[in-house]
């Protein structure tokens, strides 16, 4: 049995023995050496009987030649590992109260990045299975909402749209809004939806809401890809300011992630959250300048308006792509602060509650 990673990622183990990180083990025959990193990366079991256990400085043919001359490769590899300096590793201690530090939590999350990837991949794959339109739904949904809005609010109610056609005005805002709304809906329900995983397997719980937000970004990409020709049709060419757009996308994702942390953790304990989210998002929609420009808000309240971080996102995104007006710097900076507050507090609350998820869910 060879070295494997500890789920907490604190140390690398070899049956409870820790190796020094930069060590290089060498078989007494001096033909096979084993870098420490291979052991960390769990290449060694794989390396049995393959050319991997031969040092890299040899070329491919040499490796094969040496491989042939090493009939008992396994023994050599074992010898090489034996020579690695080792010491007793500290054990992973489980108690009722202790929490791993933030730094370790981040490292642990990094360890589980593949799980994160697979959960995102699963969500994206499954989302449009057995649908006729498939990924096109990611476009149809915001587009139709924008059409409806432009008909009722643009044509009939004649809301101002800052000098661009109302539908462009609305769809440009719908794209980041839809990212936010769907990511928030999905992530607030994510822990409950993945109940089996929570109660049967260990992994950093934050992976679950995080994966739903990343999954939302895939839909966003599609909706965004349609946005560009859409703008071109209306003879709007994005300028350099468009380079700022990814920043606002990231901000929207972060806000939905932060709010998702809060709501998903609350949802574990209070199922009421599920019913509240739809309502909350609807309310939030009207507090966000999607159907109207933020200029309808009086100048002196404009900065305060940024406390709704989505206001900064939507205004910023629209500014970046449509180039209308001047940069909403004050609004956006307040929004960034508000978003940071949501994410940080969300993390705290989530961490505080996550130990009880498996018991309460």
């Amino acid at each position, binding site marked *: 049995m060879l070295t494997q990673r500890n789920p907490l990622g604190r140390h690398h183990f070899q049956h409870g023995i820790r190796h020094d990180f930069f060590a290089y083990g060498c078989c007494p025959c001096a033909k096979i050496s084993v870098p420490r990193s291979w052991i960390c990366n769990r290449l060694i079991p794989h390396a049995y009987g393959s050319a991997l256990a031969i040092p890299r400085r040899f070329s491919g043919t040499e490796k094969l030649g040496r491989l042939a001359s090493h009939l008992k490769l396994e023994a050599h590899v074992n010898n090489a590992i034996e020579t690695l300096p080792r010491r007793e590793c500290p054990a992973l201690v489980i108690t*009722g109260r202790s929490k791993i530090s933030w730094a370790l939590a981040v490292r642990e999350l990094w360890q589980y990045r593949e*799980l994160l990837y697979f959960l995102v991949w*699963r969500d994206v794959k499954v989302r449009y299975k057995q649908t006729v339109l498939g990924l096109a739904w990611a476009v149809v949904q915001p587009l139709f909402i924008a059409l409806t809005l432009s008909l009722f609010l643009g044509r009939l109610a004649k809301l101002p749209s800052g000098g661009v056609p109302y539908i462009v005005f609305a769809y440009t805002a719908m794209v980041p809004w839809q990212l936010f709304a769907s990511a928030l809906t999905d992530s607030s329900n994510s822990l409950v939806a993945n109940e*089996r995983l929570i109660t049967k397997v260990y992994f950093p719980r934050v992976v679950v809401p995080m994966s739903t937000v990343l999954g939302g970004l895939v839909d966003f990409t599609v909706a965004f890809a349609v946005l560009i020709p859409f703008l071109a049709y209306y003879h709007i060419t994005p300028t350099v300011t468009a380079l700022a757009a990814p920043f606002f996308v990231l901000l929207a994702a972060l806000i939905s992630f932060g709010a998702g942390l809060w709501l998903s953790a609350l949802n574990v304990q209070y199922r009421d959250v599920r019913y509240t989210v739809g309502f909350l998002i609807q309310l939030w929609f009207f507090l966000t300048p999607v159907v109207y420009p933020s200029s309808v808000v009086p100048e002196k309240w404009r900065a305060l308006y940024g406390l709704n971080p989505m206001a900064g996102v939507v205004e910023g995104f629209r500014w970046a792509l449509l180039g209308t007006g001047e940069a909403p710097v004050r609004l956006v900076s307040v929004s960034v602060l508000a978003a940071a507050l949501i994410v940080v507090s969300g993390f705290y609350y989530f961490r505080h509650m996550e130990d009880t998820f498996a018991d309460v869910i």
Partner: protein
Amino acid sequence: MSSELSGSVAIHCEGLGKRYRVGQRQRYRALRDTISDTLRAPFRFVRQAFTAPIAGERGPEFLWALKDVSLEVRHGEALGIIGRNGAGKSTLLKILSHITKPTEGQAAIRGRVGTLLEVGTGFHPELTGRENIYLNGAILGMKRREIERRFDEIVEFSECGRFLDTPVKHYSSGMYMRLAFAVAAHLDTEILLVDEVLAVGDAAFQKKCLGKMGDVAHQGRTVLFVSHNLVAVESLCTRAVCLHDGKIAMEGPPNVVASRYLKEWIPSSTEIVYDDIATAPGNEMFRLRRACVRPVNGSRSDLITVRTAFAVEFEYWKLVPHSLFLDVYVYNETGILLFNTASFDEPPNPQGLLRSRIVVPGDLLNNGTHCIKFFVSLGGNHVVFEADDLLVFEVHDASSDLRGPYHGAWPGAVRPFVEWDTECIEARGTNDSKRV
């Protein structure tokens, strides 16, 4: 290389305890509870929302699922954990695998831990078999490279190769479980926590699973194995503990622990006695005094195994002069009627206290819980006395069976002992003749 380490401590638990609020797993707080609380005590909602709901903090309705468990497991050991439902076995595994936190005490673990509390965790019905292998592997903590490396092995083990690109929702439940177990079985961590995952698939696949678990246990890896299959525990594990009401009730060699566990904690009613004729069940024609089931050559406390013959005895007051039919029905745990046997006392037995006895031969019943229905009639439809589930008893698996190394469940309602005889009709080459 592993030999030098095989003696070191892999898992060390000290005073582990886990307290749950009664019904907590099922019940969650509705916001309206909290709101009504809030009206009574403002700000409590805020405080409560930030307080981790530690089980059982308020109110007396809590339950210690695990209490004061201290345990040491060394590297290379295979520890069997047995106990009745609700004894705390799964809770212990959940604590060790980090899924839930202990209320008190601590555990120290050295080495990578793999958990198999359930097979097929995270399987998605819409995804294909191939996709689910990757997904499930990642959920169990395997690296993508590891999964790729062992992919062919997994597919081969699962016997689902042809359907690899079919969504698993179209799989039969057997195929689904086989695929799920195959992924789980290829998880190679130093410490493996396994909870009752062998009961999947058909008999042939169960054999394969048991064999695989045996390989794991004998590879020198550390295994904690929770099972109701005592024979499997006996053959796979080097040591066993028995949990009872959240505490370690005994610890020792698997066979000793298993047999004591069977005697002390298996629920059964192998004897019923009614001394008083006035209150005994029955009527003016028939009253039951005693019923009991025991091995033919032994007392009631001895175990009935699949090999032993056992007797069922009834003592009753016969209060009418004419003949009575006595009927015994034997059911297995799934409610299948295995057989029925009847006696008709002709010429009629005398009135008074009588004893009837039947002997059921060994090598007939399969292992498992069986129950006996007792039925007395005058013939035809005239029922005199009827008692469902009068006696409940357990037929145990016998490990000293002449059926090879397999210790899993044998399917089927009965398990007769069948002679096998194989002879060579015509040898083909020197090598082959040996195999025949």
